[in-house]
């Protein structure tokens, strides 16, 4: 079994950022995901869509091992980031999460200043040698998250005092401050109003230049707007995966068609 893996790893093309093979996740007795295999390309936005409870968030959380925090959760199968198995025994999830950042459903800034929120990641990973470097990193991250102009005069104010949309962009800034390679977003707009949503979507499109973005969304329109690749999950399995245009215009699987036309889910 080990030998096979070694051979596979040498053969894995580096063109794909993340490649998952036969991933199975179960919470105790309950199976959440069965046999999901996905290849995620760099510099693309990949959207996971599907009805509630279909396992798309669970799968997303496998990609940076956030599921490790749940005791009863077990993951089998093979997930590779740049050809390296992230569930290898030698992989420290802390290092992995510095490479694979995450933005959550509900904006969750730390109850600290805006500056400290963004500076926290670089600080614990030792990315800045001095204060001015740190200030640069923070400014950069806030600029990339399209928040700099709104908050540059009040970096010392509490991050929790911002509006919902600003908070979510602050969380994105926090995630990209550690310069990750992949950005995972778990329904980043579900708690936001349409205007804030539009801002975040625009931002996601910009982020594609530098990062590989994986987004879970409930809104099919959002998936259609921001992503190049779309994966449709249903009842724990990956039903269809392909170019977004193709999924939304010419789905192959009847379940995909039912879902995007609003008959299931």
């Amino acid at each position, binding site marked *: 079994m080990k030998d096979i893996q070694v051979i596979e790893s040498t053969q894995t093309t580096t063109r794909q950022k993340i490649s998952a093979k036969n991933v199975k996740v179960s919470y105790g007795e309950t199976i959440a995901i069965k046999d999901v295999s996905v290849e995620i390309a760099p510099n693309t936005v990949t959207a996971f869509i599907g009805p509630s409870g279909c396992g798309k968030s669970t799968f997303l959380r496998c990609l*940076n091992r*956030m599921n490790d*925090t749940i*005791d009863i959760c077990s993951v089998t199968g093979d997930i590779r980031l740049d050809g390296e198995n992230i569930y290898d025994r030698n992989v420290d999830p*802390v*290092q*992995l*999460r*510095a490479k694979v*950042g*995450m*933005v*959550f459903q*509900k904006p*969750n*800034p*730390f*109850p600290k200043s805006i500056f400290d929120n963004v500076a*926290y*990641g670089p600080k*614990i*990973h030792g990315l800045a040698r001095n204060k001015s470097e740190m200030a640069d990193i923070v400014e950069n991250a806030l600029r990339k998250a399209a928040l700099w102009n709104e908050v540059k005069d009040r970096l010392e104010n509490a991050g*929790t005092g911002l509006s919902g949309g600003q908070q979510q962009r602050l*969380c994105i800034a*926090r*995630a990209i*401050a*550690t310069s990750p390679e992949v950005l995972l977003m778990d329904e980043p707009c579900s708690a936001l109003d349409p205007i804030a949503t539009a801002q975040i979507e625009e931002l996601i499109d910009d982020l594609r230049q530098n990062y590989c973005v994986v987004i879970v969304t409930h809104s099919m329109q959002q998936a259609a707007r921001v992503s190049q690749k779309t994966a449709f999950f249903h009842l724990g399995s990956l039903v269809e995966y392909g170019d977004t245009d193709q999924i939304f215009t010419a789905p192959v699987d009847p379940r995909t068609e039912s879902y995007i036309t609003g008959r299931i889910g």
Partner: protein
Amino acid sequence: MSKVTPSLLVRDDRTKRRNAAERRFRFYGLGAIGIAALALVVLLTTVVSSGVGAFRQTYVTLEIALPEDKLDKTGTRDPDLMARVTTFGYAPLLRAALIRQLAELGITTDLSDKHIGEMISKEAVATVRNHVLANPELVGTTLTIDVLTEGRVDGYFKGRVTMESAALDGNTSPEALEIAQRLADLGVIKTRFNWRFLTAPDASDQRPEAAGLGVAILGSLYMMLVVLVLALPLGVAASIYLEEFAPKNRLSDFIEVNISNLAAVPSIVFGILGLAIFINFGGLRQSSPLVGGLVLTLMTLPTIIISTRAALKSVPPSIRDAALGVGASKVQSVFHHVLPLAAPGILTGTIIGLAQALGETAPLLLIGMVAFVREYPAPYSETAGLFGEAATALPVQVFNWTQRADPGFAERASGAIITLLVFLAIMNIAAVLLRRRFERRW
């Protein structure tokens, strides 16, 4: 059911019954609060009315002649030689001073000299002797000094003793009280605030007027320090581990149940444990604040653990996710984010735990802190070690005084309760203020 659609302006029977039930419940609630408040008011008024006297004390100003031939026969003014004159040598001087002052002021009485002398506290003799030994040059002069009056005279000025009760009392007489009243009118006897009550050590059965809380307050303070230094880090570390790191399995469930059980163990059991383990087995000193603090630490730990765990639980999981999401390790997420957010809760729990420990009596009785202690305990000494010198504690002092015969001690006990309540109130207010100050919203 009537066919006609009921009007909204008329309440139907169901609504009336429901409203009546609501009114009844509000009434019960108000009643419950009223009874609780009444109990508190009764408790406080009783304690304050009987204890407030302990904070005032009656003194008599004596002009005492200090003859050299009685106090310093050698004439060397050497304190070591002068110390050979015991309090028995001083007692006649004080009595003579009072009798002479009565004569000078024109107060005549049928009272024997012995009984006049008994109006002065037995403590006064020691006060004067210590004063003279500290200032040997006073010998041969006349010393003007305020000394304590006897407990009954003191009680008369606080309303505890009346002419009627004095007539039935073998230790005083209405004549003595009349003299005291005349002296008070002339300003020789005065009642003023009693700092000694908070600073002086305990006194023997015959002199309640001299008893104070000094040793008890020091003992309680030392114990609180021991409890704080031991219980806070232990409790917080244990709860962080249990809440954030421990795997959820049978063993951690078992530990959790037993921590709750520990919180329900009667406090006297901890006293027995302290006696058996710390004193008999560990060889620590009896009556020492160290042992008291260790026993109270054991008692306080479950309180701190339970409140700390509740505080940690109340931190939203999204904060943990956020920290882990940017690549913080588990320990970093706990110490950088979760713990600061839980701090107000931990602090409140700790202070409430300390307040509980401060008021605890039973376990301290078993480890010998009920002893009569007149020496101020030093925090550290060569022979006894850290917090090893014998001390008492505030609640134990209350217990101790309520068992003494002289009614003066009942007043002192209530005064000690007031002191204890004030300390507890300060701690609880501090808990509330700290909570408000450090509470963060998210």
